[in-house]
């Protein structure tokens, strides 16, 4: 990103934040000043969790700046760093695990409540030390649609949900969920999970977050033939899952029972001929207002469902038509260019950039996310090398690159 942009951003931010020193007419500085974030997030803010740095970091897609971090978990446990955001943006809830001696000793699991503006911990709610540990941790926690109850997925390998009332700051129940895993929000008092036989399990709570009612649906996907991934996205009352073979399975959570929509394919015969497959660690993104679905695609054999994607295919959810095929920026090039401070605005810079593009194979990106405003940006991320590129979500054009986004990016979130 050109330095000018950073400075502009710095000034822009300076206006927004409480303690920024006025740059034009400097006045004496004081030791102790700490930045506070504005009341509500800017449209292009996003978070990225990092398994190695044990944190989730807030970035501004417009300036490329990192705005703050929240630490979670200790070196040995707490792989899954999955922040959920209160609807009013006042609070952030994160399920965390700690050992008293880093990788050993006594284990403690908690849900920590963080202030949305100061990012400081406000409260800590103890939960059973049974949180599921998996990578990268999609669908590990969920907040009920009214923002009151948080569900945390446990696996020991027995599976269950821990329910927390984030308003009263209390742990209300642990719900055994035999054979079913992960957790998705499905109304003010309901969550659902995916089961190994292709069914869904709904968990309904009473007003106090207790008396859990557990119901198993009929199977709605084929777990052996063509399993769906847990890397789903939600648009309004509809969750969208994708299968290994690229079939979308919609799940409507508006009614008293889950309603399973007609599955539809992302791929035609030509695509399948070309061995195009869905892959990556966070391979679906949706822009609710425009009804655009973004899918991370690569060319590979069967069972390459974790392979990074070299293209993002965009679909219109209204008619299931493919609108665009966007190729992703080579994260290796982005990484090297930023590290060696190659300035694409100069002739030599654009030349060496071009040379890098030509010489380095594109390993692809692992995750995508889209912001929900009227002029959304598409964020594409890679862990090795660490890279995040910001794109116009409508045209796919790259707007900027974010340098040093972390060491081991796992999941991205929009507040």
């Amino acid at each position, binding site marked *: 990103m050109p330095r000018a942009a950073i400075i502009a951003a710095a000034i822009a931010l300076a206006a927004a934040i409480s303690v920024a020193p006025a740059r034009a007419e400097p006045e004496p500085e004081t030791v102790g000043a700490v930045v506070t974030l504005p009341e509500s997030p800017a449209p292009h803010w996003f978070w990225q969790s990092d398994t*190695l740095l044990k944190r989730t970091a807030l970035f501004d897609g417009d300036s490329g700046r990192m705005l703050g971090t929240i630490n979670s978990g200790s*070196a*040995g*446990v707490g*792989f899954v760093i999955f922040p959920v955001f209160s609807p009013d943006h006042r609070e952030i809830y994160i399920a965390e*695990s700690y*050992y008293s001696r*880093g*990788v*050993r000793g006594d*284990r403690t699991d908690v849900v920590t409540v963080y202030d949305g503006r100061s990012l400081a911990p406000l409260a800590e709610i103890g939960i059973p030390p049974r949180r*599921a*540990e*998996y*990578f*990268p941790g999609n669908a590990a926690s969920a907040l009920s649609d009214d923002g009151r109850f948080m569900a945390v997925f446990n*696996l*020991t*390998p*027995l*599976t269950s949900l821990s329910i927390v009332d984030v308003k009263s700051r209390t742990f209300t129940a642990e719900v055994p969920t*035999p*054979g*079913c*895993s*992960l957790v998705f929000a499905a109304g003010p008092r309901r969550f659902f*999970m*995916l*089961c*190994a*036989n292709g*069914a869904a399990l709904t968990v309904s709570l009473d007003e106090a977050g207790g008396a859990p009612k557990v119901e198993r649906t009929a199977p709605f996907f*084929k*777990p*052996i*033939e063509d*399993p*769906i*991934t*847990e890397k789903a996205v939600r648009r309004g009352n509809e969750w969208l899952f994708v299968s290994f073979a690229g079939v979308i399975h919609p799940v409507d959570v508006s009614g008293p029972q889950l309603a399973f929509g007609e599955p539809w394919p992302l791929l035609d015969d030509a695509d399948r001929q070309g061995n195009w497959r869905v892959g990556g660690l966070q391979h679906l993104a949706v822009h609710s207002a425009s009804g655009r679905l973004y899918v991370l695609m690569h060319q590979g054999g069967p*069972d*390459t*469902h*974790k392979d990074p994607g070299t293209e993002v295919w965009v679909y219109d959810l209204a008619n299931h038509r493919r609108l665009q095929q966007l190729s992703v920026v080579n994260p290796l090039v982005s990484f090297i260019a930023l590290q060696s401070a190659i300035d694409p605005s100069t002739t030599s810079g654009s030349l060496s950039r071009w040379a890098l593009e030509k010489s380095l194979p594109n390993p692809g990106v692992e995750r995508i996310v889209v912001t929900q405003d009227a002029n959304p940006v598409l964020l594409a991320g890679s862990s090795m090398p660490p890279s995040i590129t910001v794109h116009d979500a409508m045209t796919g054009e790259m707007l900027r690159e974010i340098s040093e986004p972390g060491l081991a990016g796992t999941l991205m979130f929009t507040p």
Partner: protein
Amino acid sequence: MTDARRWIDRWMERGARQLARRTSRRSLLARAGAIMVGGMTLPLLPVARAATDDGRVPPPSDDGLPTANGDPTQCSYWRHCAIDGFLCSCCGGTQAACPPGTEMSPVTWIGTCRHPGDGRDYIISYNDCCGASLCMRCKCTRTEGERPVYHTSKNNDLLWCFGTKSRAVHCSVAVVIGVATKPT
């Protein structure tokens, strides 16, 4: 589909047998087994009975294999067909033993890999070595036959440090625990 079913069935049985034999945590495993069944439409042999039978086979010799699939420090090593983690061979252990200071998890995920030498399919137990932070050497992610988290016994996203003093995962081994006989 039916075939696939039977495969899964067979792997899970053998997996459960091995696990039962290798660990004293019967109760944990009984429950684990039960839970896996919970979500499946097929029964799993009672762990107690399975534990009485012995199906151990020696691993095939890797002598004469090319480096690519004969070197346990390579991601392409034949046993690694469904591994996801850091190779213990690069972390102070071997393809079948944990590094010093770690503890091997008795619970595991199961895969089946073909030995390039004798062409037979072997059942591989991918056990995590637990009690230290990520090894960060020889990361290897292979997903042949791998399934999402809800299909627990076939998933390699999970940290399989269960029944160990610490849930911290360091690296993963690939232990040969049986031969997968073709469906008749």
